[in-house]
């Protein structure tokens, strides 16, 4: 079994123009981790994850990623998707199959079953033909998570998956994340703000602040 780290950052620097957000940071993310990225606003949590995914260029150091031969799945904040697009929940979940099907191939029977399974697992059956723009924030976020899960990627990266959700949807989303890690054995990295919720889910957190980036036990950071 592949035991190499999912992400290794060595002396990585990321800047927006002259504004250095991450300065020569080192980080090793072990495979199979359930790891929230915590820290104050503007510390660079999202920037760090986006740099690891290649969404933002880094100016120095090196980032070595081993996602296990399959692209990772990225879940943006639901508000990043323009609700004007005429796509249904099902269409969006099927989007996750693009790496397998490319431009033209239609879904085969196995993929149809996989889509059905994921939609059922996330409780999206009654909404699957609804327009994405008509859904509540919680259902939109669930749809994006379902799209990530249908890819069967071993690594999931989520950018503030509970942002803008009410308390019930937030709790629901966090349970889904834990379930994906425990039952699915996936590496799940996500940006989060509330330490009390992190403490209930994970053993370790990735602390991002002015002093740099480091992995720490939840209890240590909570204190």
């Amino acid at each position: 079994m592949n035991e190499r780290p999912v992400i290794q950052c060595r002396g990585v620097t990321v800047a927006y123009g002259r504004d250095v957000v991450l300065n020569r940071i080192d980080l090793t993310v072990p495979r199979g981790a359930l790891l929230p990225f915590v820290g104050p606003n503007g510390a660079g949590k999202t920037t760090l994850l986006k740099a690891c995914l290649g969404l933002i260029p880094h100016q120095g150091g090196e980032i070595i990623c081993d996602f296990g031969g399959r692209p990772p799945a990225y879940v943006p904040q639901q508000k990043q998707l323009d609700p004007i697009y005429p796509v249904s929940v099902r269409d969006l979940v099927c989007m996750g199959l693009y790496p397998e099907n490319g431009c033209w191939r239609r879904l085969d029977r196995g993929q149809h079953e996989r889509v059905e399974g994921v939609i059922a697992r996330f409780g999206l059956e009654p909404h699957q033909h609804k327009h994405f723009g008509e859904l509540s924030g919680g259902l939109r976020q669930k749809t994006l998570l379902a799209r990530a899960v249908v890819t069967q990627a071993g690594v999931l990266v989520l950018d503030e998956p509970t942002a803008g959700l009410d308390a019930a949807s937030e709790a629901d989303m966090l349970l889904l994340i834990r379930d994906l890690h425990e039952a699915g054995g996936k590496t799940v990295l996500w940006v989060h703000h509330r330490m009390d919720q992190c403490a209930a889910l994970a053993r370790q957190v990735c602390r991002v602040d002015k002093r740099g980036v480091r992995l720490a036990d939840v209890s240590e950071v909570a204190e």
Partner: protein
Amino acid sequence: MSLLQDAVSFTGLFPEAVLCGTVMAAVCSAFGVFVVLKRIVFISIALSEAATCGLALALVFHFSALAGSALVTAAVVFLLTLPDKRQRMPKDVVLGTVFLLASSASVLLVAQSGFGLEEIKAMLYGDLIVSSPHDRWVLLLTGLPSLALLLLFLRPLLYTFLDREASFVMGLRCWLWEGLFFFLLGLVVSGASKSGGALLVFCLLVVVPATALLLARRLWAVIGLSVALGVLTTWAGLLAAYRADLPANPTIIGMACLLLMGVALLRARHDRARHER
């Protein structure tokens, strides 16, 4: 005379107008769906004006109209596809400047050339009635392959526009798909500008697809409906202009705008009624 007799007589008298109008409406209305979805309406009018400026250049310096409009449109497309960081200015400002520069340059070029007001009007507003067989070929050769490529690569284009970051992580080359779309849009606008004029092209790229988006819920349905509405509005506009002795292009534009307003009103009523239930 009956409506049908008028339609037959108009088609016999102006076959190129009907053909050019049909091709232009189908192609621009299909592309326009992404123009509206991607919220780049301002880009489409800047491109239309750039194409008009290219036409003015061609008119003054006596070279091919398609080459003129394609040249200036390609320059604007290149400017638009530059990464934001290298532009050092908000994209809206760049677009606004392009629009103003292209509009004023078109008028100044034609005014300096000794051509009259009629040429300026013809360029800005276009006139489908005077479309030539050459215009028809230009439209067919630029529009139909572009439309075919748009439909062929609909999936990656949609995904790139819908969720660029997730698409990139999935392995899509987003810059390639965005570049292809803008290149094809530039080609379509260049090809359509001489017959359609900046205003009709802009109308077909924005007003017609916006109407279709109010009526249909799935992407394929929106594209199909947009093409159908574009073609029907163009035919209806041409026929109305023929019967009432009006300029064709403004009549088509007026009809498309009225249709959008009517559909928007009906949709608002329908949504309110559903909400109350």
